[in-house]
Every structure is written in structure tokens, then in C-alpha cells.
């Protein structure tokens, strides 16, 4: 829940000759407010007139979680959260409605976490968990049918077919998932994620 007030005891030095230091308790508000007013653009078209308004509304359904490490600006690293491609409710917060990523200056993600979120979002879009990809075309421009897939790290039309996979000791394997995510992603068993099939 939101914390609106915080009591901080600050020592105030008066410039008096007697050297009397008075300790004053100040009620200092935090640097942020957990409920916030946002702005929205609304467009109404009449017969001859179009009205474009800028509206201010308050987000009352805000449930903000405090950080475990308050100095860290990154929202994921400060709370110790590790992501997989299935965590759609977390990934949706870093995305616009069309499926593009919000800029890093706005969300305050660190560079490593930003790339983790990027790959997870791309994988979720290709698995049809998030909105984003509707039309898929090959490198030559041919239409690729929409098929069910999961853990697709690379772009749909970007990989060439593997005709000869080789001998058992030098086999060329299919790449699945991302290595940076598999290194940090949560797992119950001690067996690592399988990245090559």
C-alpha cells in the first residue's frame, strides 16, 4: 500500500551566539507519490469540427510495491525479480499497446535487465502471449504461415534450414531460448535449462 508520510528527524543549526542546537522533527514527504495523475489525448469528430482535448485523470487502481534496495533505480534488480517468457503480467508493464518497448530513460531499467525484458517480450509475442506480431514475412518476402511456437529466440524468417545435421559427435543442434535468461531464470531442480535440442 502507499506510504504517504515519513518522519525524519533533522538537526537544525541555528546561527545563535549561545550555540544552542535545536533538534526539530520534520515531516518530510517522499520524493514520489504512489498515486499519480496522467494525461490522455481525446479526439472527437463532429460534422464540421474536430475537438482534440487533453484530459487529466487519476490512476486509482495503482498497486505499487516498494523496493527492497531503495537506492537502485532498476525496478527488477532492486526487488530481486528474474523473468521468464511466461511472466506476461510483468512484461506488459514495459510495453506499449502496439507491442513496442518503452524507452529505458522512462522505466529506469538497467542495461542487462532491459535486454532480458526485450528477449522475453519477443519470445512471448511469437508464442502469441502478447500482442505485437500479426504479419510475418520471410527474408525473400514470402508469406510465412502463423504456426504455434514457443521459446523462439530468433526472428521468424531469419534462420536458414539445416539440411545435414552431422555425425553424433559433431552434431549441429537447434538453438532454443536465450543463454542470459537461462543463467538467471528460476528453476526448482538443479538440472539446467536445455538450450540446444
Amino acid at each position, binding site marked *: 500500500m502507499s506510504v504517504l508520510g515519513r518522519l525524519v528527524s533533522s538537526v537544525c543549526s541555528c546561527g545563535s551566539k549561545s550555540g544552542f542546537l535545536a533538534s526539530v522533527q520534520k515531516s518530510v514527504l517522499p520524493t*514520489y507519490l*504512489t498515486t*499519480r*495523475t*496522467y*494525461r*490522455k*489525448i481525446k479526439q472527437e469528430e463532429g460534422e464540421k469540427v474536430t475537438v482534440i482535448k487533453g484530459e487529466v485523470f487519476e490512476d486509482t*487502481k*495503482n*498497486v*505499487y*510495491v516498494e523496493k527492497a534496495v531503495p537506492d537502485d533505480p532498476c*525496478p*527488477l534488480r532492486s*526487488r530481486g*525479480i528474474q523473468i521468464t*517468457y*511466461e511472466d*506476461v*503480467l*510483468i512484461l*506488459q*508493464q514495459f510495453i*506499449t*499497446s502496439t507491442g513496442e518497448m*518503452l524507452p529505458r530513460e*522512462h*522505466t*529506469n531499467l538497467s542495461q542487462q535487465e532491459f535486454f532480458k525484458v526485450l528477449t522475453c517480450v519477443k519470445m512471448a509475442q511469437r*508464442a*502469441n*502471449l*502478447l*500482442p505485437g506480431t500479426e504479419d510475418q514475412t520471410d527474408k525473400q518476402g514470402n508469406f*510465412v*504461415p502463423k*504456426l*504455434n*511456437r*514457443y*521459446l*523462439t*529466440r*530468433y526472428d*521468424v*524468417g*531469419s*534462420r*536458414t*534450414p*539445416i*539440411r545435414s545435421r552431422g555425425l553424433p559427435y559433431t552434431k549441429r543442434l*537447434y*538453438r*532454443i*531460448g536465450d543463454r542470459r535468461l537461462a543463467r538467471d531464470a528460476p528453476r526448482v531442480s538443479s538440472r539446467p535449462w536445455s538450450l540446444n*535440442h
Partner: protein
Amino acid sequence: MSFGRANQQWATFSRVWHILNADRQPAGGIGVLVSRYVQGLHKPIYHPTSDVGDHVVVVNAKKIAYSGNKWEEKVFTAHTGRRKGRVRMQAFKVHELDPTWIIRRNIYRQIPNNLLRRTLFQRVHVFEDENVPAEIMENVTNVLIGPRPVPKAITDYTEEEKDSFPKLFLRDKYFLKS
């Protein structure tokens, strides 16, 4: 109902019909699961020569899922025996021509290479849609669960769940992109 010895025998050795939804399931995992039920390995009375296997109906075969970029990278090869008879096709093209081919191939190869394989494979019924003929649906009594737990899409969550989920950062007042 009289529970004599003959009835007990017929009840233990009766053949059960199972149904499996292949929507968003991996092709290899389905082969392993179906071959197990078709041979009868899920029964304590199993023996290879006593005819203990069950029927399995696989539904939604065209909605199968491959992990990674296998739809483009995986190549199926065949040779007709004649000159210039080598055929190499990517997985999505094969799926276009015959949506049931990939599943049937995986199931057939998972059953052991016996003289029993062809008879057991006749007890596997694969359909690309959910349109199953009534003669087969009459017999089905059990539902099998696929090997992969399917994750939830964002459209599957209700509005309340989305709103009550906690937020990780606060948006800037002047940032207008939604």
C-alpha cells in the same frame, strides 16, 4: 451385475479409448505419451504378446508447437529410389501438405520396431481439427493431459487480475505513449 470370473476377465482386458488435445503441445512429447498408451505400458497387466493396448484419438493436430525456430530449420528428407529422387522439405511446408504427418511419424517411430508395430499403429487415430466422426467419439471415455503445461496469454487474464497485479515503476506524468 454378476461379478463372476468371466466378467472380471473381460473387464480387466477391455480396450479403452482415450482422447488427447494436441493444441500447443510438442510433437515429440505427444509421440512418447501416445505410444505408451497404445502398447499398454500404463497397465499393471502389461505383456507384449497379450493384446493389452488401448486406442488413442489425437485432435487438433495442425495446432502443434515446435520450440525454437524448428519450423524453419528442421528439414525432412526422403528418397524415391529413382534418380534425382531426393526430396527435402522444411517442416512448415510438410505441415501445409499434410497436417497429421508429423505426429503420425513421431508416434510410429516411438513404438518399438516389431511385427506388432503396424497393428498397434492402426489403433491411433489422428485428426487435424476437432471434427471427429461420431462412430469414434461414441467410444471415447478418457481424457489425456498433454506433456507441456500451456502458459496463459494476456487475453486469458481477467480485468481484475490485471488491475490488482502490483506495478514495478511509476509512469512519468508527461509521458503520453500508452
